[in-house]
């Protein structure tokens, strides 16, 4: 008899999701799905609001990566205004985005993933959490908490608020950086370096012991997409997107936000509120790709900072060509963090960083605008249309989690097929299947969309079983 295994909710993720695994009569895995079960209506309730309200409104979609939304949204608004923001504002925003990446990656690696990595996939679920990690490996637990604090405090110093800072606005930022704040950030950097180096060393020590998981955790050839600079180094805030195939060949390059929707489409599956992004020329699902730390490192030729560049060279030795195992997202995430700290230090040495000209102003000069940035978990794109008074008439958000959705589903199926035999499974096996999703660090609340109208089927049946009326929408 066929059977369905349901993991609900999937734990240690940002947002609510569930996994279902369908077994056939022989107890073999027939199919598996990762469902995003919540729905948000941001694209709908943005309609009718003034476009310049979008950054602060859209940032409310998420408490983990509001900065990415602030930046992608502000850039979309700037496309509507047709302005180029002052250099200092661009640098300050870049620093804010990197600070958020560091704190979000610290959350993903230490709070959500490290219980599996440091305590073991089969360890007691009662202690398989951040407090268990702090108990067993106090120095790593402390490093994780400190790195998250580093990022959050930096966001607070720049934007006056840890979560949803209103500092990023269309045209730039609301206030310049003060010398005192710059000095405080600089004083925090040595400790951040030490903590991320500690995590990298610890990860490299244990990574080999996870070889069986590396083999089956969403390990398959796919396309990758991410932002890079003109010199082919990693970029989080500006630059343009590059798309490569599984062998590392460039499929598309210089994808600006305005070109994004020309090349990227979104498909819908009935089992999830998250859409499935794909590269249009290859169609769906062949054109599905991965984004995020792994994709960024696979695409970039360099990090552009000395310490992270050394780590990148080592990382690229994991495979001949792009690294395909999604387990390596964890490793890539740590290199991202090291890069982030180095880059923040570089930005602070910019002679213009304290300049007070940090905002450009303009009204509505175009009726459509798009903006893109790298969120910690991958590429994010906001696209708005406005009327001539600047009120939003249409909005679309393409979220990193939607762009990884196909890979997450394929990864869950791959792991389920490998681990579940003859209908037998243990808690440790189900935890491994959840851990496949954790490698991607998806942000589920960001990624949900209502698409068209919800299906509705009402049948009115009389006491004798006769169908009296039926409404189908």
């Amino acid at each position, binding site marked *: 008899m066929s059977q369905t295994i349901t993991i609900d909710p999937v734990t240690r993720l940002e947002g609510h999701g569930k996994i279902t695994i369908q077994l056939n009569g022989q107890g073999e895995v027939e199919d598996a799905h990762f469902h995003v079960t919540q729905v948000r209506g941001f694209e709908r309730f943005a309609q*009718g*609001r*003034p476009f*310049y*309200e979008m*950054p*602060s*409104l859209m940032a*409310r979609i998420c408490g983990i990566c509001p900065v990415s939304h602030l930046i992608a949204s502000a850039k979309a608004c700037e496309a509507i205004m047709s302005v180029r923001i002052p250099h200092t504002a661009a640098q300050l925003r870049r620093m804010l985005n990197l600070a958020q990446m560091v704190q979000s990656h610290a959350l993903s690696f230490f709070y959500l993933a490290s219980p599996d990595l440091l305590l073991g996939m089969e360890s007691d679920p009662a202690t398989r959490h951040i407090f268990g990690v702090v108990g067993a490996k106090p120095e790593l637990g402390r490093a994780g908490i400190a790195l998250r604090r580093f990022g959050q405090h930096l966001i607070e110093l720049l934007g006056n608020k840890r979560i*949803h800072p*209103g*500092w990023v*606005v*269309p045209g730039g930022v*609301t206030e310049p950086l003060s010398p005192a704040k710059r000095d405080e950030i600089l004083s925090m950097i040595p400790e951040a370096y030490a903590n991320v180096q500690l995590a990298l060393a610890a990860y490299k020590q244990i990574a080999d012991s996870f070889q069986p998981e590396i083999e089956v955790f969403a390990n398959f050839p796919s396309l990758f997409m991410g932002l890079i600079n003109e010199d082919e180094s990693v970029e989080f805030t500006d630059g343009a997107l590059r798309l490569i195939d599984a062998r590392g060949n460039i499929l598309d390059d210089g994808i600006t936000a305005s070109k994004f929707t020309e090349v990227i489409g979104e498909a819908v599956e009935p089992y999830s509120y998250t859409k499935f992004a794909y590269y249009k020329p290859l169609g769906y699902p062949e054109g599905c790709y991965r984004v995020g730390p792994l994709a960024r490192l696979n695409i970039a030729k360099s990090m552009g900072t000395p310490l992270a560049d050394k780590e990148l060279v080592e990382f690229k030795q994991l495979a001949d060509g792009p690294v395909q195992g999604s387990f390596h997202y964890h490793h890539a995430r740590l290199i991202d963090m090291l890069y982030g700290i180095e880059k923040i230090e570089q930005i602070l040495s910019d002679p213009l960083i304290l300049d007070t000209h940090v905002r450009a*102003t303009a*009204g509505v000069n175009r009726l459509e605008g798009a903006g893109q940035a790298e969120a910690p978990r991958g590429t994010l794109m906001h696209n708005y249309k406005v009327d001539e*008074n*600047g*009120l939003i008439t249409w909005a679309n958000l393409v979220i990193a989690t939607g762009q990884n959705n196909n890979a997450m589903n394929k990864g869950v199926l791959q792991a389920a097929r490998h681990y579940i035999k003859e209908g037998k499974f243990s808690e440790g096996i189900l935890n491994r299947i959840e851990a496949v999703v954790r490698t991607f660090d998806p942000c589920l609340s960001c990624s949900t969309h209502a698409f068209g109208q919800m299906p509705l089927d009402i049948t009115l049946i009389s006491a004798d079983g006769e169908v009296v009326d039926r409404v189908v929408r």
Partner: protein
Amino acid sequence: MSDNVEVKTLVIDGHEVSARRGQTILEVARENNIDIPTLCHLDGLSDVGACRMCLVEIAGSNKLLPSCVATVSEGMQVSTSSERLQKHRRTILELLFAERNHVCSVCVANGHCELQSLGQSQGLTHVRLPYCNPELTVDASHERFTLDHNRCILCTRCVRVCAEVEGAHVWDVMGRGIKSMIISDLHEDWGSSSCTRCGKCVQVCPTGALFDKSKVGAEHPKYPDFLPYLNLMREAR
């Protein structure tokens, strides 16, 4: 003091105070550092007693009186902050919050809003009434300013400042009761109305309903204090 000034003595919250005939209870209370919360009242504008936040109790009467328009009388005993009054004030605030779409976190007036401040000072912790969630429009047709009906509490400060101080009378109120709406001219877009673009209405608006387009996030402090000075200067001329 001239002969025709008649002095009244009264008691407000146990304090014996004296006032000139014709003064409002609110005026006298504030002269004596007794705080009565207000929302539609603004120094420099005529009073309309619309919001009912300034209701006070008068000994010997069951009726609650709006102190911004009720004048003093000899021997009056006024109570400004009884439990009953506080309960009524909180209910009024709840009604205001429930009637339209007040979302503080994304409002330009966040941190500078009189409605928000009153909610805090009056101890409003919950809105017990179901929200109306009306579908309201935003008028962004003006070159410099925006009117967001979602955040309007119909205090009519904008109507009064435009008519009484600027002398343009662009703003008015259309409809009745809960369906009342602020309109410009004869219900035209603000951008094509007879607005003089002085911005006084934006400065006196207690919420984020009227705001400057160049301000986003919570960066819109308002400065309505200019009104009494403006009036004083005009009287002196």
